[in-house]
């Protein structure tokens, strides 16, 4: 009990540190370095402000700004500056003056074509780029002090960034009726990500402290250095797999927090918890983070850990390339999110549709593209590694048709990824160059075609969703077969179904573009091929059911998640069958029905599969048993709240709620039918979803706690706690390094069983040396 007490105290310290981190997250406003992208001709705020330039805001009639505003009144402002190189008045020079005005409260409104609102801030337009004075309206808020912050540029106008250009800034405070102290409003995204970063740093510090307290004697750099350099340089498939888990779980949390913010925003109609810009960034990063930084690394974590063990290999074939696949991920992640810290995250959706991706004035989009280029490189290396490892390093006796289904699923998944992702990479590079050196691939004025991006993206993007869900199929096959204490029903058909999904994935992507005006004939073809996907998927579902039917099921946590997967994935698959039907797709396009569908397959499919995998392989990976009690609690809360989140979204979609919209409005009563509004029940459903979403989010912390606590205090695990019979259960838990002292040989449990006709033929054709071929074919 003594030990337990100490741990409780430590846990409380960590929680307190986390809260402290959130409290101290920055409250000042981070600003991008330039005034806006509108200025051509100066790199504005890179240096120190110059005192030669004098900026000022007065009322349009010349009098000074009032000290107290009248609530709701509109003031005509005169924004001006004097001094600096703009006064040199050299003819033929252009774009000599510019400004940017932020009001912490109230609304700024342009009154002529010389000013405009960009990203919520008032700035000049092209037409107003030669002036030194501009007019605009400011509508006062109802209460609270307002800070008007003006930045001006005085530019020499030679259309290049030169050191002569000068700038200055000035702030005015206009008090409201109450006259309270002014506060600067920080950008929500910046605060959130700074908070996450700070939390991570403080967490690392707290962890170091725990290490120190445990053993102050041996707490030294000398002991720490081998540990840290091991993790930074290891190429062992198990270490790299663990690194994938850590980064994947971290970003699963980040993506989850983003989702919670989105849910708060949508919890009531007309909400302004997030600004429109913030909302756009939030859903973009939620999608990107979840797909590329959470789902794929977690899958890679299991692939790294389990595939070499399952095929009886000591490691992957290219261990250093494998380490590089991993290290490109966190670097890409930082790059991808770096736009956050200037408050200008990518705001283009995870699909990055053009031409917005090439033209948005959120600088974060450039870094979003750059980060994903690195993730593409990472996936390519992963692809090479796994394809070659599985093709060449299988233990003796393990033919293609003897491979465990998880390995098969990883093979099919990386095959799809590997073939499709270069296309996406080229699209990204094109867009990146569009945004940097101004090529014109997606610039419509130069003949660029946004649909080309759609093709390049969805040629990758559709296989990508199978890439993240197919490994879950593999996990479920392993889990259900082991839990039902029998072999999987219809192994051969399972393999062909996987391969079928892998093939069909490449010919269905047109259904993402059914509303883009493609030819009706092509739509029809895509409709047929998309519906074809249901065939192999259906085969798998029925095989799983039949496996359970013929077996005797043991209800462990991983079994429960697998059963949950069967339910939710089937529901997601059925709602998926609505979309290939062209008319239905046109009707449901861009509604919450789509959101409901893909969360049912991606959360109910991939994430549930990954949860099952965590509970199933945790003893193998750490050598400890996980707490079943907590696991079942996690499943019950998680499964119920998950359905509470996403099931009502079908309803919302049918009611007409559009996805990716900042907010929604409801009708006053059922008789007023204003276009674009939703019936009142939509607000109630949204509130319900938000509550469930928080429960679902928090329920997953149970698993995180379970992982950490079991790792520290769990029961020692035997080599084969569940009674599985693939190779990974042969080695001790955790496995030694190298993973096998001696490569095992796969023996056939049923020597009378001859290979199928196709396999037999393939083996005859493809095995070059005839010496012991007959023996091999007998396996």
């Amino acid at each position: 009990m003594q030990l337990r007490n100490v741990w409780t105290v430590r846990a409380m310290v960590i929680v307190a540190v986390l809260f402290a981190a959130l409290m101290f997250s920055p409250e000042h406003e981070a600003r991008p370095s330039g005034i806006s992208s509108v200025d051509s001709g100066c790199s504005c705020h890179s240096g120190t402000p110059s005192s030669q330039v004098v900026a000022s805001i007065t009322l349009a009639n010349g009098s000074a700004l009032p000290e107290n505003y009248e609530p709701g009144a509109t003031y005509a402002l005169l924004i001006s500056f004097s001094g600096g190189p703009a006064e040199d008045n050299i003819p033929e020079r252009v774009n000599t003056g510019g400004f940017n005005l932020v009001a912490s409260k109230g609304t700024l409104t342009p009154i002529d074509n010389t000013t405009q609102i960009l990203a919520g801030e008032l700035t000049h337009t092209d037409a107003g780029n030669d002036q030194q004075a501009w007019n605009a309206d400011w509508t006062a808020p109802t209460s609270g002090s307002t800070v008007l912050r003006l930045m001006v540029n005085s530019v020499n106008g030679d259309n290049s960034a030169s050191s002569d250009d000068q700038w200055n800034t000035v702030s005015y405070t206009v008090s409201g009726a109450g006259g309270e102290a002014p506060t600067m409003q920080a950008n929500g995204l910046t605060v959130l990500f700074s908070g996450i970063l700070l939390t991570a740093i403080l967490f690392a510090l707290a962890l170091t402290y725990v290490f120190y307290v445990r053993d102050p004697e041996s707490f030294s750099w000398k002991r720490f250095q081998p540990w840290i350099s091991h993790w930074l340089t290891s190429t062992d498939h198990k270490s790299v797999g663990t690194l994938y888990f850590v980064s994947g779980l971290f970003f699963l949390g980040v993506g989850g927090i983003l989702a919670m913010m989105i849910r708060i925003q949508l919890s009531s109609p007309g909400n302004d918890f997030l600004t429109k810009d913030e909302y756009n960034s939030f859903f973009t990063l939620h999608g990107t983070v979840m797909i590329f930084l959470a789902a794929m690394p977690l899958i890679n974590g299991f692939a790294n850990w389990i595939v070499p063990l399952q095929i009886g290999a000591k490691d992957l074939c290219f261990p250093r390339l494998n380490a590089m696949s991993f290290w490109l991920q966190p670097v890409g992640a930082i790059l991808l999110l770096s736009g956050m810290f200037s408050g200008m995250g990518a705001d283009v959706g995870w699909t990055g549709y053009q031409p917005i991706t090439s033209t948005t004035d959120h600088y974060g989009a450039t870094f979003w593209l750059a980060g994903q280029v690195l993730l593409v490189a990472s996936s390519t290396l992963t692809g090479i590694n796994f394809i070659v490892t599985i093709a060449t390093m299988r233990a003796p006796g393990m033919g293609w048709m003897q491979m465990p289904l998880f390995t098969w699923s990883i093979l099919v998944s990386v095959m799809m990824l590997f073939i499709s992702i270069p296309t996406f990479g080229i699209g990204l590079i094109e867009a990146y160059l569009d945004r940097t050196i101004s090529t014109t691939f997606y610039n419509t004025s130069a003949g660029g075609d946004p649909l080309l991006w759609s093709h390049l993206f969805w040629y990758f993007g559709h296989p990508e969703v199978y890439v993240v869900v197919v490994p879950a199929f593999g996990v479920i096959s392993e889990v259900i077969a082991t839990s039902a204490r029998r072999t999987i029903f219809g192994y051969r058909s399972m393999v062909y179904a996987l391969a079928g999904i892998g093939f069909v994935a490449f010919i269905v992507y047109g259904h993402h573009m059914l509303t883009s005006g493609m030819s009706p004939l092509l739509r029809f073809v895509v409709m047929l091929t998309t519906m074809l996907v249901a065939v192999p998927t259906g085969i798998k579902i029925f095989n799983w059911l039949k496996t359970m039917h013929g077996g005797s099921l043991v209800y462990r946590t991983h079994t429960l998640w697998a059963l949950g997967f069967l339910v939710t994935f089937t529901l997601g698959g059925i709602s998926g069958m609505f979309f290939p039907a062209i008319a239905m797709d046109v009707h449901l396009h861009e509604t919450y029905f789509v959101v409901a569908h893909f969360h049912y397959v991606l959360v109910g499919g991939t994430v549930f599969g990954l949860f099952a995998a965590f509970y199933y392989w945790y003893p193998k990976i750490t050598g400890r048993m996980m707490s079943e009690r907590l696991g079942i609690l996690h499943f019950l809360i998680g499964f119920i709240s998950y359905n509470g989140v996403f099931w009502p979204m079908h309803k919302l979609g049918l009611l007409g709620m559009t996805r990716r919209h900042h907010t929604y409005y409801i009708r006053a009563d059922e008789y007023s039918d204003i276009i674009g509004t939703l019936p009142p029940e939509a607000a109630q459903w949204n509130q319900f979803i938000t509550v469930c979403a928080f429960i679902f989010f928090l329920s997953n912390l149970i698993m995180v706690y379970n992982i950490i606590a079991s790792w520290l205090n769990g029961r020692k695990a035997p080599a084969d706690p569940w009674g599985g019979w693939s190779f990974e259960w042969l080695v001790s838990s955790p496995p030694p390094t190298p993973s096998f002292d001696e490569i095992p040989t796969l023996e056939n449990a049923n020597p009378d069983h001859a290979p199928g006709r196709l396999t037999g033929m393939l083996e005859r054709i493809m095995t070059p040396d005839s010496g012991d071929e007959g023996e091999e074919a007998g396996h």
Partner: protein
Amino acid sequence: MSDDHGYHHGPHEWSHGAPHNSWAPIIISIGSGVFLFFFAKAFTMNEGMNGYIYDSAPLPLAIAGLAIIFAGLISWWKQDFSFDGSYEPQATHGSTPFSNVDIRKVGMWVFLMSEMMIFSSLFATYIRYRTSIDSCYSLEGTVVEPGTACWLPASYFIAKGGEHAHSTLGFMPDALVPGAINTFALIISSYTIVMALKTAKRTDLEHAERSIKVRNYLGATFCLATLFLVMKMIEWFIGFHIGPFEAPSLLSDQFTIHNDAYTYNYGHGAEAGAMTVDIRMAASIFYLTTGTHGVHVFAGIVGLGYMVVKAHKGGYGPGNSVSIEYFGLYWHFVDLAWVAVFPAFYLY
């Protein structure tokens, strides 16, 4: 086998023999991130999307990113330098259809599969725009808005470059000379890399003599690849005027990705006319595709630089010739890609 077991965790001797822990992956990754970050900081498109705002301050940092990548490569090479082929990992016996094939060979072929997709995507972009944007030739004589997007292929500028010099060569424009030299340089370099492999496999030579020969063949490949990039720079940026041969560069011909007001003069005599047209798309895809190919050649040069040094130190012999073979696979692919790029972008 390798002696530098300074940082070594566990008995990881089973496959390549190199030390099992490596700083190279994390260094190369960070370098790539630094490069992409500061490159984006240095260049930002302007509002009209017809040019960029250039800030010189981050550019040295972008170059520093490249230097970090190179440092990572050196760390990688240091581990590989002692590799003498004695533990070349092979596919397990019975792993149909790769029984007993070198694993690295399979890896290289799989890698080339993704390279294939890279160039396919570039050609998809090219074909998409080439077939949909009107050719400027087809607009001749019609009334077009100034700045109308139309397609003037690079081959037009290359042929026009020949006009400047009144085509000394007669059978082809002078401006095609760098491209023609490049094509032959690559084809010959494919031959020299094969000769390097063949020589490395020879058992009838002394090791020292063989090493020198292998080094020379690899060095020749290196020089031809460098020649390729030099010629490309001449063709893009510098132009040339040697004796009777004279051709302006594509840059001085105003074939740039920012030229939305190119003055296209056509016809002779009574049918002559001029149009102001937008050729940015044709230039964008030309520079991206040939540039991507150039980056592949550059990567080959970097790899060849390492191999020349290793050959000079006697690192290649009959027991370790396959490294040259696998580099050769890549090099042949780069050659083959050029054989597709050259006619599509320089001749058509």
